C-alpha cells in the first residue's frame, strides 16, 4: 500500500502500525511525535494504530532550540 510520510510517498506492507513505521524509517522512538491525517496519535497508541492506504503521516522530532 502507498502512504505519505512528510510529503514523501512510501510503499509499505499492509497492516503496519506506527511503531513499526518508525523502526522501518530508522527514526527514534524517543523525542518523536506522529500525526495521522492531522490527528496526533498518543504514544500509547502507536502499537495499535494500523496505517491504511492513502494515509497522510506527519512525523515530528525534538531538536535543539531556544
Amino acid at each position, binding site marked *: 500500500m502507498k502512504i505519505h510520510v512528510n510529503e514523501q510517498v512510501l510503499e509499505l506492507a499492509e497492516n503496519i502500525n506506527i511503531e513499526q513505521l518508525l523502526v522501518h524509517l*530508522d527514526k527514534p522512538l*524517543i523525542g518523536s511525535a506522529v500525526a495521522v491525517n492531522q490527528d496526533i496519535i498518543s504514544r500509547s497508541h502507536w502499537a495499535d494504530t494500523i496505517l491504511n492506504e492513502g494515509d497522510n503521516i506527519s512525523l515530528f*522530532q*525534538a*531538536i535543539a*532550540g531556544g
Partner: protein
Amino acid sequence: MLFDEMKKNDQLIIGDKSFSSRLFTGTGKFNDQQTMVAALKASQSELVTMALKRVDMQHRDDDILAPLIKNGMKLLPNTSGARNAKEAVFAAELAREALQTNWVKLEIHPDPKYLLPDPIETLKAAEMLANKGFIVLPYVHADPVLCKHLEAAGCAAVMPLGAPIGSNKGIKTADFLEIIIEQANIPVIVDAGLGSPSHAALAMEMGADAVLVNTAIAVAGNPVAMSEAFAKAVQAGRQAYLAGLGGQSTQAIASSPLTAFLEASL
C-alpha cells in the same frame, strides 16, 4: 535570618516544580552536541528549551535528547515556527507527545526579521492551552497589561523580552519589566536579548525570578566558560536583590567622615 539559610530556602516554584537555579538555558545554535552538553552542565540550569520540527526524511538528526535527560534537565519544548494560535496549540500537543511533558514555552512570532511575539495570537493560544492542562510559559513583549491578561488566562509564568531574540542587546525594556515584576503574581522570566552576564545580573537585581539565555552562551568564544559566567551573574544578581539594594541619589552622600584633620596638622 542568616543569608546562607535565605539562599537555601530561595527556591523558584513554577507550576508543580521547584528550581534551585534561576538560569534557564536554550539548546540552539551550539557548534556541536558535546559543547552544548558541557555548557548546559556548567550553567547548572535545571530547565532547558527545545524546539520541534518536521522530520527530514533524508537525514537522521543527532539525538540530543539522551544527554539532556541523563543530566537530569527538565525539558521545555517551545512552539517556535507557529504563526498563529491554532498552529501553536498543535505544536504544543505534538511536543507533549514527543517529550512527554505538559510544559510549553509558547512562542508565536510570525515575522522572521524581528521575531517579535504576536500578542493577540499568544493570548488566544495561552487560554486554549491552559484550559487543556498545559503549564504555559508565554514569550511576550514587555507589556504589563498583556502579562496581567496572561496571568488571568492561567499561565504558570510570563517570559517578557529584554530585546529581540538573538540580538544580544541586553535589557532595552527595563522600565516596563519593572512594572511587570511589580504587578505579577506569577514568576517573571526575562527571555531574549540578554547578551552578557551583566545583562542577566541586572535582570535579577530588578527582581526577575529567572532569566533564559541561549544565544549569548552558544555563540560565545568559549561557551562552557560563558555559561559558568552567566550562572555566577544570575546568582550575584539574585543575592543583590534579596540583600536589598541601596537607593540612588543625584547628590553625593559621603562614605567617610568629612572631618578636617588634614588641615589641622598644617
